[in-house]
Structures are given as C-alpha cells and as structure tokens.
C-alpha cells in the first residue's frame, strides 16, 4: 500500500482514534502513517457489534415474554455467550443454560448470583432485572 493510499475514512467504530499503518513511501521505503480508518474494517466491526446487539434485544424480548431470565439479556449485553459466561463464572455450560431460564435463576443462591454478577462486572441487583 502506498502512503497516499492509506485510508482516512473516519470509521465510527474507531471513535476518533487513529491506528498506525505501514505503507510504502515515494522512494519505496516503509513509512508509518496513522489512519483514521477504512470502510472494510468498519463494515465487519459493525457487523459483529450489531449481531451482539441483536442477540441482546432478542433476549430482552424473551425476558419480557416471561420465557427467559434477565441474566440472558445481561450476558449478551456484556458481549458474552454461554461458553464465555461459563468460563468467566466457573459454572458448567449446562448449568449456565439452566440459570438463563426464569425458574433456574429463581433457584440460585445469593452466593451463586454474586458469581454471575462478578463475572459480568455488574451488581447482583442489576442482573436480576432488565435495565429501565
């Protein structure tokens, strides 16, 4: 890539940050050029962020319909899935899945709720309900 071809497209996903690119200067030597972003990166990053937001919104709808516990919403809100929440909380995946149901969550002890709260970086009260 030539130095004058380093994209400066102002990606929203970079939030004003610049990333360093290695490019070819006029004499063929490498030059370091900060980039304001490239559309291709913005597309794939937004794709991933949007997928996570969609999962959280679907979970919210399930919680409102009474078919899932708010914990499922918070799991996706924190950009996790069952596998990652299992690793961060220390519960087996099949137990996490059960705790995402209304009845499963209701049966959790205060200590187990605290484990989920710690894993998600939220308070015990927060994970028990949807955000206002």
């Amino acid at each position: 890539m030539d130095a004058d071809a380093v994209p400066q497209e102002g990606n929203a996903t970079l939030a004003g940050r610049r990333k360093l690119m290695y490019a070819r200067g006029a004499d063929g030597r490498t030059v370091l050029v900060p980039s304001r972003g490239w559309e291709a990166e913005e597309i794939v990053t937004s794709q991933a962020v949007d997928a996570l937001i969609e999962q959280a919104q679907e979970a919210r709808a399930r919680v409102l319909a009474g078919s899932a516990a708010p914990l499922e919403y918070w799991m996706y809100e924190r950009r996790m899935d069952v596998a990652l929440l299992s690793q961060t909380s220390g519960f087996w995946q099949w137990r996490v899945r059960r705790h995402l149901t209304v009845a499963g969550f209701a049966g959790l002890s205060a200590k187990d709720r605290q484990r989920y709260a710690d894993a998600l970086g939220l308070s015990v009260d927060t994970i028990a309900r949807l955000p206002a």
Partner: protein
Amino acid sequence: MSEAAAFEHLHAAHCESGVMANLMRHHGVPMTESLAFGLASGLSFAYLPFIKLSGLPLIAYRMPPRSIIKGLMAPMAARFKFETFRSPEAGQTRLDALLADGQIVGLQTSVYWLPYFPPDMRFHFNAHNLLVYGKAGDDYLISDPVFEETVRCSSADLARARFAKGVLQPKGLLYYPQGIGRKVVEPAAVLKAMRKTVRVMLAPVPIAGVRGMRMLANKVASLPADAKSSAAYIGHIVRMQEEIGTGGAGFRFIYAAFLQEAAAITGMLRFGEFAERLTVIGDGWRHFALAAARMIKGRDPLDPKALAGQLRALADQEEGFFRDLKVALR
C-alpha cells in the same frame, strides 16, 4: 513515585511488537516495532477450527501471544521475568512494588475491560499487551502501543482486565527485563529469525502457514451463499485479519518493513526486493478484505467460492514468496 518523564511512548500497529519495541528502547536498545516483529519471527498464519471465539474459529495471521516477547530473548541475550498471580490483590501489590522500583512493566490484559478502548472495539479478547510506566493516585499511567498517546486506567478497571477469564486468560501476567545482554542486532540473528518464519509458513501441517490458508479456503468454499451464518463467518475472517491486533495485511506490511531493515543489517540488498513483493501480497489481502466487506454489506452478492479463490491465490503467492526466500537464505 512516577517515573513518567523518562519513558518515551511510540505508536505501533500491533500491541505485542509495540510493547517490546518501546520496552527495549527504554532499556537502551535501538529497536523498532517491525524489527521486534521480524526478529521474533512474528509472521505466521494459522487456522484453528477447534478454538472458538464467540462460536467462530480462531484465525491467526501471526504467531501465538507472547511469542514476540519470548522470541526476542535469544537474539538480544535478554532475560525477562514473567509472573502470574492467583488473586487480583497479589497482582496489584506486585505491580505497585515494581513501579515503585522504577521498572516499566509489561502486562497481558483483556481488551473488553479497558475503558479507554472505543466501545465498538471492546470484544472479549484476552491477549492484549500494554506497558505500565507509572501511577498517579489511583490511576495507572499506561503506554498502550496501539494508541497514539499514553492513557490512564483506574486500578479497579486494570485489575479486571488483568484477571479476565476465558480463552488465553492472562492470570495477571506481568513481565519485565532482568537483563539485556546485547544492545545491537546481529546479522546472524536476523537470518535465523527469517529461516524460522520460512519454516513456519511452509510447515507440513494442514492448519499452519500456506496450507492453513488453503484449508480455510476450502471451508469458505463450502459455505452456503444464502445463509446469514456465512456472512458472519466471512466477516469474522476479515475482522481477525484487520481489526483484532491489526491483522493479516498489516502483518505482511510490518514484515516487509523488517525485510528492509534486514537488508541494511545483513548487507544482503535483495531482501529489499522481497519487501516489495510482500507489500504486493499484503495489498492482495486488503483486496480480499474489501471484496468480503462489500458482500457482507450487500453491495455485491455473497459469493463464498470467489472469496475462497482469492484465498487460494494468496496462499499460492505466499508459498512462492517463502520458497524463494528460503533459497535466498541458503
């Protein structure tokens, strides 16, 4: 207690090579990011379908985390101390003690829990690297090489990032040099590092190097053109390539910069021609990323077979490149 004034922060493309270049320079070794990357044989390709990140396979365009740190030990005759901790409290106590001693300390952290990252960049990726060069009140003074300027982070947030769990969990890992025996880069070390990269890229295993690219191409070719999951998979490839750790094309460009430095250090000027050739291959990776992004956005119809063809062509070019480099290194 802060030694902030003495430390020089330079912006880098990749966290681990940037950390090592900044740390080495702080200790009097003239080191650039690209030299650190090449000298530690950082360039690679690996397709690891059995390691899942959010349900998608790990695709690496460089060697595994910590290999740049460890790869610089022998060429610089350096000894580093690596420490992990059972508890965040112990990790913070040790970090504070080292800072009080005047050390610049390297850390492995999660990206997600670092509040200074832009929100859209905060994914659960645990192999980020940064340097801590001081403390002011409750804030750590941080040289995060993928940021243009130094940043600050509260002790609670940094503890969370250091002790995040999951794939590649850092367990509070910190590292610092105990001695750096060599302050200049020897030509022999450069050649040895290049030979290792050649070996990795041409390795006779299906998931690594150019063979790994072809295996990934086969997987892409088998994706159905009409499924939403296909777009997610292809987006993931590009994201691993470009966004996380500054990826595939980026690493090719960094290695090209290293090849130019290698030409100067060894006096073997034809490495400069290889640098030119690798830059063209890096451009090819960017064409692939752009073609994929256009399909994801719906500007072009999703065509996994065409993308697989581009991946195979890149694998062929890289194979030719590394075979010729192997000959040049004899």
